[in-house]
């Protein structure tokens, strides 16, 4: 179950080759009861289409929004979501954990 992300990264490569702006989000740290382990991937293209998950649905919406910024700027971002963070609470990591998500553009020169 933890190693079945292959289709996601293949989709990222296909999107990139088709000329889309693409970002890759990766869970890099977790504390408490995080729904997805470190290493989990979410890929996002410039249409806002995404595949995979970093939280099982809790914060994907916010990550996609940030990813569109990353695609536009080319600068990577480190996001943190947790119950202590009011914004994160609003987007709903209600399981009580905290996660850090690294978002980078695919196709950096």
């Amino acid at each position: 179950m933890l190693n079945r992300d292959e289709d996601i990264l293949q989709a990222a490569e296909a999107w990139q080759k088709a000329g889309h702006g693409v970002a890759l989000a990766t869970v890099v740290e977790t504390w408490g009861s995080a729904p997805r382990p470190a290493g989990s991937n979410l890929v996002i293209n410039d249409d806002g289409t995404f595949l995979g998950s970093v939280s099982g649905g809790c914060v994907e919406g916010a990550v996609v929004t940030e990813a569109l910024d990353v695609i536009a700027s080319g600068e990577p971002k480190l996001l943190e979501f947790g119950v202590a963070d009011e914004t994160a609470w609003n987007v709903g990591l209600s399981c009580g954990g905290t996660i850090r998500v690294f978002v980078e553009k695919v196709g950096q020169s």
Partner: protein
Amino acid sequence: MKAETLAILNTERAARRPVILVTDISDGTQRLVKAADFGADPLHAELDKQLRMGKSAMVESDGKKLFLNVYAPTARLVIIGAVHISQALAPLARSLDYDVTVVDPRTAFASPERFPDVKLIAEWPDEALPGLNIDHYTAFVAVTHDPKIDDPALLHAFEKNCFYIGALGSRKTHAKRADRLKAQGVSEADFARIKAPIGLNIGAVSPSEIAVSIMAEITAELRIPKTIPAELSKVSNP
């Protein structure tokens, strides 16, 4: 991530070769390290450890926070013999995230009724195994008790360097197996790789308990480091 890095990552994963992506999360610089190149990498101890655990993690190196994302192939379990033990072993292995395949030429044994939801091949090992692309990330278990089926299967497992090779049978059965396989040219080193009697000794009696002992032994083989620290080896060899 460079497009080139993603392409190599996907190629390596499709070929079932383990890689670790090392990312400096302060600026996004990264490198992809193939398992074959771990030895030459400054982080080789951390890379070895994370690959063995199959776990991605953040590490600190020279004051930098580096994320090691482990992309290891899904482990597979090939079971030779659609026997009673296999009926317990297949679902247990699946719950541990193994891709499971059962091979047995005896159609009375290899029936979908006995093995619902399991990839089942009712053919002789010589016919079935080449198509399975068995590799190092495969645990291989021969449990038919029938040399005509188990022996050729074990030869295939040696050739593919499976990380775990186990065979059912008492010490006496295993001694006879040694005679047969060595007569077919199997080396001492290869033969010594067979775990027999199969499974950790936990006093297992029922098929389900034997399945637990086999999966425990496979897990240990997958996760415990091969190199024993010097101080430990001294204790065990006074």
